[in-house]
């Protein structure tokens, strides 16, 4: 029988694993050094579903440091820069799209 962790993980392009830091909730990214970084540029990039599943399992194993880990798409620029792959991740990475004060 397939483990629940192995179900429904299918990526179609370069992806990363992101979560929120437990102590303060800030957005963090899983790194290739088995740690977390607040910078998307440090994120480990996976290209296959098996890699994604493994990276997510590793991230989920750190239940103390991070909460709510999941896989999200990224866009890789020719320069090597990592960009968020959708609007939700753009907002998480760059912050609010709105003015807080009336203007």
């Amino acid at each position, binding site marked *: 029988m397939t483990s629940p962790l192995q179900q429904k993980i299918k990526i179609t392009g370069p992806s990363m694993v992101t979560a929120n830091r437990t102590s303060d909730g800030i957005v963090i990214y899983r790194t290739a050094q088995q740690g977390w970084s607040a910078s998307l540029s440090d994120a480990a990039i996976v290209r296959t579903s098996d890699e994604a599943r493994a990276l997510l399992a590793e991230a989920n194993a750190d239940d103390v440091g991070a909460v709510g880990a999941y896989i999200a798409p990224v866009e890789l620029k020719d320069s090597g820069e990592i960009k968020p792959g959708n609007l939700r991740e753009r907002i998480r990475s760059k912050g609010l799209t*709105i003015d807080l004060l*009336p203007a």
Partner: protein
Amino acid sequence: MYAYDELDRTLINERVSEFRDQVKRRLSGELTEDEFKMLRLQNGVYLQLHAYMFRVAIPYGTLSSKQLRALAHVARRYDRGYGHFTTRQNIQYNWIKLAELPDALADLAEVGIHAMQTSGNNMRNVTSDQWAGVAPGEIEDPRIWSEILRQHTTLHPEFSFLPRKFKIAITASDHDRAAIKIHDIGLRLYRNTEGETGFEVLVGGGLGRTPFIAKTIKPFVSRRDILSYVEAILRVYNQYGRRDNIYKARIKILVHELGIEKFAAEVEEEWQHIRDSALTLEDSVIEEIRSRFSYPAYDKLPHMPEELKKAAHDPHFEAWRRNSVSTHKVQGYSIVTLSLKPVGGPPGDATADQMDAVADLADKYSFGEIRVGHEQNLVLPHVAKRDLPALWKALDKIGLATPNINLVSDIIACPGLDYCSLANTRSIPIAQELTRRFANHDTANMIGRLHINISGCINACGHHHVGHIGILGVEKNGEEFYQITIGGRADENAQMGTLIGPAVPYGDVADVIEDIVEAYLALRARPDELFVDTVKRLGVEPFRERVYATR
């Protein structure tokens, strides 16, 4: 204001200590997130896109100035200097740190504020009319009944793990400002033909992906029986409500699937077992609760003081007075609504400085009392008319005198994808752009009463179904699109809006809303025919034609 007793204070303080220990154990790894999640939710702590979100209860939307200062303090000390008032009369902070939450809760506990049952599958804040106790023609203060239900259901073991969250709203006026028909239970306090005061009980209202207007389950329940009757409804729901499917777990689905007659019969049978029990509300119990509400010692003041006559020459003051000042039940006093919808601002947000300033103004002009309305505005409920000019000047200085109450820019909006982990699309920037498009107050006044409600996903926290114009964000292939409905309303004649056509892209929404408003201005039978009445008279077709003819 309601004065908490020693029991309430002990309960709140014990909850802070308990949560402090739970947070400590979570941060040390003693508790896993799976174990901790329910505990944090029981204290109003969600995880959102950028951070934890902390929802604090404001029972029936009533605050003292001291409590509002505490809310300002939390915004300043533990968050980023602002808070967001919600459609359920609560406040949310968006950037709170888990490690600091126990301290924030402890600071709030000092003024009798907590976050219990602001999340989870239990009885949420029992909301009410923000004009409760001061509205002309009101039967009696509905907050007494909100408080009775609050006390009975807080940490009630039988109702702490309902199939899904449960929301009650109460009104005691002919005009429903509490949106009771879109709640799980709506209570309308009225006097029957025999002169007895009691409740019309409505059940099964709600929005979200399966919207329903509440149905009357019992046209009259006496005051002494209301607690047992509500409990009977909760028991039937607790027994038969679905726990296997979160999308079908609300009581509205049960009422719809059983039918109101069968559901009512089940409730009636349950009620017969408990109606003459300890749940019966004797007059002495009701009076005990009533006695803990304090009311201002109003002065005898003239209907039209000199200060008001003099200020009437200032067109800016007059524009604000006509829009934001309402008739009070006591001569010489007014109810003043403070718009949290400035042009270009996020709807419902207030800075810590604004909250402190409003608290000071409440002390000076409103017997130290503030209300929060479900439309995401604040209210000073007891302002002497002679003080209106001075209050207006003070509000203007802090950006809270925008004269747009109930007008097109008085928009209800959820936090949307800028904050919310459930959202598919953004809500706030749509609202901000619309307030800029309709910034001209003369134009807004000419348009008249028009409620725009925006939700960033089908969960409908922005009540889009019941907006005169409703805007619902949906994602299509990674892009933000918005469905537009018209003709909804949330008052005593509540109804769902009707979809006018295919969803439009983010960049077109403001243009579409302008087209709809222009169509209305061309179609209305006379200047005082409200938008929602024009839609009722003509249907959506003329509006659909206008919007899609060139798109």
